[in-house]
């Protein structure tokens, strides 16, 4: 095959989710023998695009041409059979089956009697493993492998289909330096064979080592593409940022007198990888009346930090947490609530709401003692509480009896806010509070956050969107790989570049080796 011939061509792909345009008229082409890096912040549309290319999403506008033939993959199997394979960030292996059983899952070679031809399966797997420089027996069950090895098995599985297009989504996030080297060797071989590679990684320095071309996405739109050697890391960062600013920054004033929360050397062990930490020696302070932004890319440890402070994983942590100068051990969410903390979690449907409950029942779930007397729930108090917050937070619903499952994302998020405002917290932790909601609801939430901080709350505002951090926060902490890498006072002059730069993880990890 001639090198640099486009294998896959994407034209004007648009994908809409309710209320959000995840991809807007994206076009690009993937050439044989070339590795293309797809770059963008969280929510830029990278994953959505990859899911369309690999057949996970089959409803979209636009066209995909595979070797000049118009295709529309209905599912991943169809894409695989054509020659498009994807290696997901999360592992999709079955722990109790062996390597060879996993690699050939669903397409096991059969003997003439119709039973699985284990010798053949083993032989083929061994051949593939050899290529991956992975010295393990094909009969080893997956759960006995290290995470890095499992990642390589995942890649082996994708390659066993002999695909022409290989999509790798953050393949180095869980593997060691040596394994990264092996992976890069394999990618070089694949390129020499004329395969097209799509490489997604937050580690920009890797891209310069292994890819030839880049495509930048932002807010679902195509921004730029080009030769990677003709650009620099700083230029790439500059292209990734610059989302539309939604609200204008007012001048905030926060007098840092009273320290509400002080975290010292907080570490959280990773259960999956030995000697690895999800949080490593985190130190920070939160002051009364302050909105503290927390920025980081996917997997930086932001959510884990919030959950640790809210009393989850209490057996796996080390370090100290002071609340208003007093050392506290927070052992459960109840404990955290009693000490004045509140957490609006990242996934409102999984963690924030009981979807089958109505607005009233969700709102009062945190404060049932407030709406009961003599041990019995009082219907009127219960309803009054919900009605009060429906008015003050402008929750749009026909009545407090409406089941929250039927509400829009923005209104659901306001119900979560309501149930936490009802506890009258002193420290309010918001984990991606504006994810997946429309602009009006976002603006209302920004205003609420500012208002709460003026009332003396300390707010931690976790977000992947730099413009909103710059618009809402007094100060921003940046996290990368479980550490705090920057602490920046936000002023009108603070740039998105400055923050994003601190959030990009570096390849060199001496202390973890």
């Amino acid at each position: 095959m001639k090198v640099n011939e486009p294998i896959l061509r994407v034209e004007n792909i648009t994908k809409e989710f309710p209320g959000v345009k995840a991809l807007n008229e994206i076009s690009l082409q993937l050439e044989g023998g070339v590795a293309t890096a797809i770059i963008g912040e969280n929510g830029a549309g990278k994953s959505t695009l990859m899911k369309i290319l690999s057949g996970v999403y089959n409803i979209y506008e636009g066209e995909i041409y595979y070797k000049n033939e118009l295709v529309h993959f209905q599912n991943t199997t169809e894409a695989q059979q054509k020659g498009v394979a994807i290696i997901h960030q999360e592992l999709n292996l079955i722990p109790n089956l062996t390597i060879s059983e996993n690699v050939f899952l669903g397409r096991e070679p059969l003997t003439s009697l119709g039973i699985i031809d284990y010798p053949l399966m083993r032989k083929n797997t061994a051949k593939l493993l050899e290529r991956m420089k992975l010295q393990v027996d094909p009969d080893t069950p997956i759960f006995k492998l290290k995470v890095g090895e499992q990642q390589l098995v995942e890649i082996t599985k994708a390659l066993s289909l002999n695909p022409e297009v290989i999509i790798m989504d953050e393949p180095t996030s869980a593997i060691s330096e040596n394994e990264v080297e092996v992976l890069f060797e394999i990618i070089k071989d694949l390129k020499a064979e004329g395969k097209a590679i799509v490489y997604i990684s937050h580690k920009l320095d890797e891209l310069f080592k292994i890819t030839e071309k880049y495509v930048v996405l932002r807010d679902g739109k195509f921004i730029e593409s080009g030769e990677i050697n003709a650009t620099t890391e700083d230029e790439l960062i500059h292209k990734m940022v610059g989302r539309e600013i939604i609200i204008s920054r007012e001048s905030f004033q926060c007098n840092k007198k009273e320290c509400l929360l002080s975290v010292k050397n907080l570490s959280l062990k990773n259960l999956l990888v030995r000697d690895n930490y999800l949080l490593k020696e985190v130190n920070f302070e939160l002051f009364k009346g302050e909105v503290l932004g927390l920025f980081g890319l996917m997997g930086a440890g932001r959510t884990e930090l919030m959950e640790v402070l809210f009393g989850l994983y209490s057996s796996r942590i080390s370090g100290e947490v002071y609340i208003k100068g007093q050392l506290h051990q927070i052992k459960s969410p109840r404990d955290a609530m009693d000490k004045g903390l509140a957490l609006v979690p990242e996934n409102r449907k999984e963690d924030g709401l009981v979807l089958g409950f109505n607005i009233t029942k969700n709102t009062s779930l945190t404060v049932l003692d407030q709406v009961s007397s003599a041990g019995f729930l009082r219907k009127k108090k219960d309803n009054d509480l919900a009605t009060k917050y429906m008015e003050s937070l402008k929750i749009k619903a026909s009545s407090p009896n409406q089941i929250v499952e039927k509400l829009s994302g923005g209104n659901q998020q306001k119900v979560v806010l309501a149930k936490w405002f009802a506890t009258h917290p002193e420290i309010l932790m918001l984990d991606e509070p504006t994810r997946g909601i429309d602009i009006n609801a976002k603006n209302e939430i920004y205003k609420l956050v500012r208002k709460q901080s003026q009332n003396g709350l300390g707010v931690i505002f976790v977000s992947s969107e730099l413009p909103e951090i710059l618009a809402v926060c007094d100060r921003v902490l940046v996290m990368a790989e479980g550490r705090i890498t920057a602490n920046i006072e936000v002023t009108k002059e603070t740039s998105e570049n400055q923050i994003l730069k601190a959030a990009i993880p570096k390849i060199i990890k001496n202390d973890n080796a």
Partner: protein
Amino acid sequence: MITLKKHLSYSAKFQSLIALFVLCLVLSLLSENFLTTANVWNILRQVSVNICLSVGMTLVVLTAGIDLSVGSILALCGAVSATLVSYGLELEIFNLFVGFGPLSAIMVGIAVGWCLGWFNGWTITRFKVPPFVATLAMLTIARGITMLWTGGFPINNLGKEFAYIGTGWFLGIPMPVWITAIVVIIAVILTKKTPFGRHIYAIGGNERAARLSGVNIYKVKMMVYAIAGALAAVGGIIVTSRLDSAQPNAGLTYELDAIAAVVIGGTSLSGGKGSVMGAVLGGIIIGVLNNGLVLLNVSPFWQQVVKGLVILLAVIIDKAKAREE
């Protein structure tokens, strides 16, 4: 009319109520013995034990759990109460004999049921044993202890006072019906009017969200299994008293009847949806069906087939309705 129809079709309780009404109408036309006072009391007395178990089962199922051990706990607690009331307790090491009146014997029986249920809850929350497995183990353990305790023989002659609970009448209503009615009323208040009840529904609806809202999910679950155990003991005492005998084989497969009542009453086995009154109606439907088929001289083997079909039908209708929504 349309709105009424819509309203009716959305309420699982109304659905069971209509089914019960139709069932009674058909049976009263087919058999003149069905709609007599004596027969109505008879049915209610017969279903009272199953309803006691079903109420406990409802609480457990609302948290997305299951309790297979209630039949065995029923037998053990019945046997414990019966032994205490007829023989007392001899503590040889202390050279001590403790005599029991009917009331104190009953209290001990219920306490034993509570403790066994609490043990279920403990293994489920502390060691993360799936409820199905934990209570399956208790099903065997409690039945085994019952056999050891009784040596496999029934305990008879429990005295007039003890027998009053299962066979007596108070203000023209049979005692078992009184007891069950009180249990049901308390359970309805508990589930609908207290924070504890709200917590039960929240855990079944979304356990993670409940926990992150500060609900002590371990405590609530332990309580729920303990209550189920205590109500199984209440059932055991009614059964023992009615027969004037504690049978080591009492309550065999009663857990399945309780689950059937819960399911027919519209409670979802995946938790969070359903009600105590639903289980009561479910229990009565099973009771009426059994009674009617006996009056019509239908073979008991057919009764089992019919009961199975009713369970299937109830769930199929529920699922079809869920899809419509």
